[in-house]
């Protein structure tokens, strides 16, 4: 991908407060189409909050975020000021953005396949037959064809997370956001989820991943972003990031986890 492409994510000076607590402090980030960006940093650094802001699960208090050229969560009024967008528009924007949660958040009253086809049928108005065909293809892609009719309660954590990825992909998003997708998993299940993510990255999906998986970051990421205390400390390609981090805070963080 050439760098002249318009960025798919364009965050400018994003501010976020929880009460009086400033959790994001002028965070800016651009992600180009097909790029895989990993956000790392200590817990409480605001990386998850920032990711949630990208699809407006959190409302931002300053700055702006554009995805695919659309301003997220806000619209410009006639007098040029910003106001919160209608629920309908926000929902529409979210269909372009897949989100994978740390705790999977599969719907327990639906089978694996039903989880995947629910949104295509109800939101995209895809015919059920077609949605089922696509859903089965997605299950095959994450290696869970045999779990088609299983309820989430009968799946292992790794299997649940793979279904959750398939559910997000079913909306054919232009961008996938991963919020610590392997943090709630037992060690032996991390691999199967990372494998699916690596496959996605290879296929050219644009991904923003908040993760502590340095192996994945090194192999799959095009760029690493280090956050601490609500600010972006440093950005670099993985080779450079791991071998010669510029900022002392990055060096300190890396020395602790590597």
């Amino acid at each position, binding site marked *: 991908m050439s760098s002249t492409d318009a960025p798919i994510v364009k965050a400018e000076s994003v501010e976020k407060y929880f009460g009086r607590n400033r959790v994001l402090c002028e965070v800016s980030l651009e992600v180009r189409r097909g790029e895989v960006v990993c956000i790392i940093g200590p817990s409480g650094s605001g990386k998850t909050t920032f990711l949630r802001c990208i699809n407006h699960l959190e409302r931002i208090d300053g700055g702006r975020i554009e995805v695919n050229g659309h301003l997220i969560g806000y619209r410009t009024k006639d007098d040029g000021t910003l106001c919160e967008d209608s629920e*309908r528009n926000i929902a529409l924007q*979210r269909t372009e953005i*897949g989100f994978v949660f740390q705790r999977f958040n599969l719907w327990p*009253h639906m089978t694996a396949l039903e989880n995947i086809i629910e949104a295509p049928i109800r939101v995209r108005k895809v015919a059920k037959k077609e949605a089922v065909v696509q859903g089965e293809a997605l299950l095959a892609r994450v290696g869970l064809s045999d779990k088609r009719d299983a309820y989430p*309660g009968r799946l292992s954590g790794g299997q649940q997370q793979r279904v959750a990825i398939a559910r997000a992909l079913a909306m054919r998003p232009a961008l996938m956001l991963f919020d610590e997708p392997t943090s709630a998993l037992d060690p032996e299940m991390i691999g199967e989820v990372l494998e699916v993510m690596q496959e996605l990255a290879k296929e050219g999906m644009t991904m923003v991943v908040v993760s502590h998986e340095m192996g994945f970051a090194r192999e799959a990421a095009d760029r690493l972003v280090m956050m601490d205390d609500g600010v972006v400390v440093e950005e670099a390609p993985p080779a450079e990031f791991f071998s010669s981090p510029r900022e002392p805070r990055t060096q300190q963080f890396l020395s602790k986890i590597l």
Partner: protein
Amino acid sequence: MHALVAALDWHLLKERIFDPNHAFAQALIRTVLIAVLAQIFGVLLGLASALFQMSRWRVLRVISYFYVLVVRGTPLIVQIFFVYYGASLLLGFDLFPRSVNFGVVSIDGVVVAGTVALAVNEGAFMSEIIRAGIGAIDRGQMEAAKSVGMSYGLAMRRIVLPQAARVIVPPLGNEFNGMIKNTSLLAFIGVYEIFLDAEQGYSVTFKPVEYFFAVSFWYLVLTTIWGLVQVQIERKLGASDRAEDEGFMQRFLGITAHSLQR
């Protein structure tokens, strides 16, 4: 003691239980219809009130708050009298005329008033039950629904409420059990349901034991049938995640025991 038992009109008691007259049969049907309708409207009111309470608009939250506060804080019998006698005066026109015609069916105004009063009362209790039920569902469920582009309404309908239903149904069952029995209060505004039927029989014959024992029997029949239905509903709702079914009688007795504690 011996004298009392001997004085019972066994024939009358048997007749009231096994071969009730036409007036009683009609009263019984009326009792069931009022209870079912009042419960349905009560659930709808409760759902609306619960959603109001979670709304981001303050006005709706305040309305719901006062509704629940007032209705739960005053006696049901007073509410029934207020609705039947007071509402018309307050509104300046006869809200519940002697009979209301809907095409072929004609319904007594007092029955409508009684049903409305029971429904309004029930709505406040259901509001709390539904709110708690929705509150028991993990926030992540709604977030996941939103993340794939669902609107709030769609996410509620397809994702949150079906899960909340499992939490809501057991207390809802107990509410309906109470509703069946509370219809008896409508006797005091003149709704001809089974308690009024018994009361009138008693006042003519001065045979309280026969009439009130028999009517108790019929209430017990209704609540028992409901208990059986409730078990089936709960079983169906829990089908997707229960590893092994408890025995039918075990669950039935559990629910009965729970109802008895009220």
